[in-house]
């Protein structure tokens, strides 16, 4: 089945210099294994192609049903140096929630 991440996750993002962080959280416990299986660092890097210049790291917080992604070089230099409208990466979270997943499992949305 196909759906956008928005259907099963919520998220918040922010900045540390030129690194953007996206905390991606499953809306229900049963969605966390799906997130963990499909939303890999590699897929996130591809999703942000043309935006994120550096590597993407992924960390797991199963206690919060969450994944934390660090996107390096995504903020145009970061801080007051960045020329981006969203120089602090506040909207990276919703950009990730646009991602479409195509999964083998059946889940209730």
């Amino acid at each position, binding site marked *: 089945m196909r759906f956008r991440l928005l259907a099963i996750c*919520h*998220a*918040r*993002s*922010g*900045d*540390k*210099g030129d*690194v953007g*962080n996206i*905390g*991606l*959280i499953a*809306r229900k416990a049963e969605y966390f294994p799906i997130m963990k299986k499909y939303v890999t660092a590699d897929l996130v890097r591809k*999703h*942000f*192609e*043309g*935006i994120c210049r550096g590597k993407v790291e992924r*960390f*797991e*917080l*199963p*206690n*919060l*049903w*969450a994944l*934390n992604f*660090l996107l390096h070089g995504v903020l*145009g230099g*970061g*801080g*007051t*140096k960045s*020329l*981006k*409208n*969203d120089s602090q990466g*506040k*909207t990276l*979270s*919703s*950009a990730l*929630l*646009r991602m479409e997943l195509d999964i083998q499992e059946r889940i209730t949305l």
Partner: protein
Amino acid sequence: MMMDFLAEVTMSIMQKQKRRNPELGYARDLVQIIEQILPTCLEKNIKIITNGGGANPGGCRDELFRWARKKGITGLKVGTVSGDDILDRIDGLSEQGIHLDNMDTGEPLEKISHKVLSANVYFGASSIVEALREGAQIVITGRTTDTALTYAPMIFEFGWSWDDWNKLAAGVVGGHILECGAQASGGNFSAQWEAVPDLAHIGFPIAEAYPDGEIVITKHEGTGGMVTVQTVKEQLVYEIGDPANYITPECIADFTSIELEQLGNNRVKVSGVKGKPATSFYKVSMSYRDGYTAVATLTYAWPDALEKAQAADRILRTRLSDLGLEFEEIRTEYLGLNSCHGPIAEMPEIINEVVLRIAVRSKDHDSAERFGKEVAPLILTGPPGVTGFAGGRPKPSEVIAYWPALIAKNAVTPEVVVEEV
């Protein structure tokens, strides 16, 4: 009550103010806020802890004392924490073999040392605790970690030992939840933003701390917003790196150990937090001048809104190039279309209007200023149907870049002074 005033660039602004007037260099609105709330705080014995002292905690205290004397307030004890400002010590430290290289890139400080505007060590809670133990009702610090403002009173009240890592880490987690104000109580909440009640009167989060390290996040009765496991989770994952190693001056907190539980309406229990011993370093935050930016916006209306905005962008770039101006970067974004999500965004069928946003960064002030002069003529000389330029010419603003470093803890000493008016 804790009040956090310092973003990363704030110290450089305050340092600049202090250079112009040695009595300034702190958050001036802090004094106004304390004047407003102090009567209630004294009546209810609420202590105030804040990093609003910025580059001049002593100056902030002096201003507060001047006001207190005028009001006839006596017996008020105010503590200050300083020693975090190492701007004048950089050369001396270098001679001692402490080099403050960039901890992210590894570059040596010499690269930017002539442009440095501020250099501050992030202290933790220990000096705040010391000031509280000396009887301070208000503690004004320079650069401290945001979380220290929250866990210092827990250590003071419960007498936690400095190697009780789990409890210290629990305090740090409480601090992280509070440090962005209402972001833990329904602000910027993505799971279901439309369900958050009364954002106009949103209540700030409160951490109820218990001696065993358990914390309950709540908010005042009669305020808007909400405290749920989801609102707290969103704040917990905000601006973190490796969640298992959240480094602070006094311990390393493991965010993968946090357990959350909804206890009732607007009450979330935070427990199970594990901590590890602190490192032997403080983080240093330095800022330096790094050129200029300028930003211009123009609004184009239907028909062909996007095509016209794109044409204007090309015309402007040609003019800048003809003038021989050198920019490190020129960035064009179309607000309303893709400035947030870039190529991930999908195009709408009809574009009613679009805001062309062009930003430049240059080494020198003049190029950024000249860019500003090239924008206004586009209204009369470029594509039609353009407006939104009432604000005048874009003005250059200085880039204050950020240089993070580490310093051995034994190279700096926090200075605590408690005085009574």
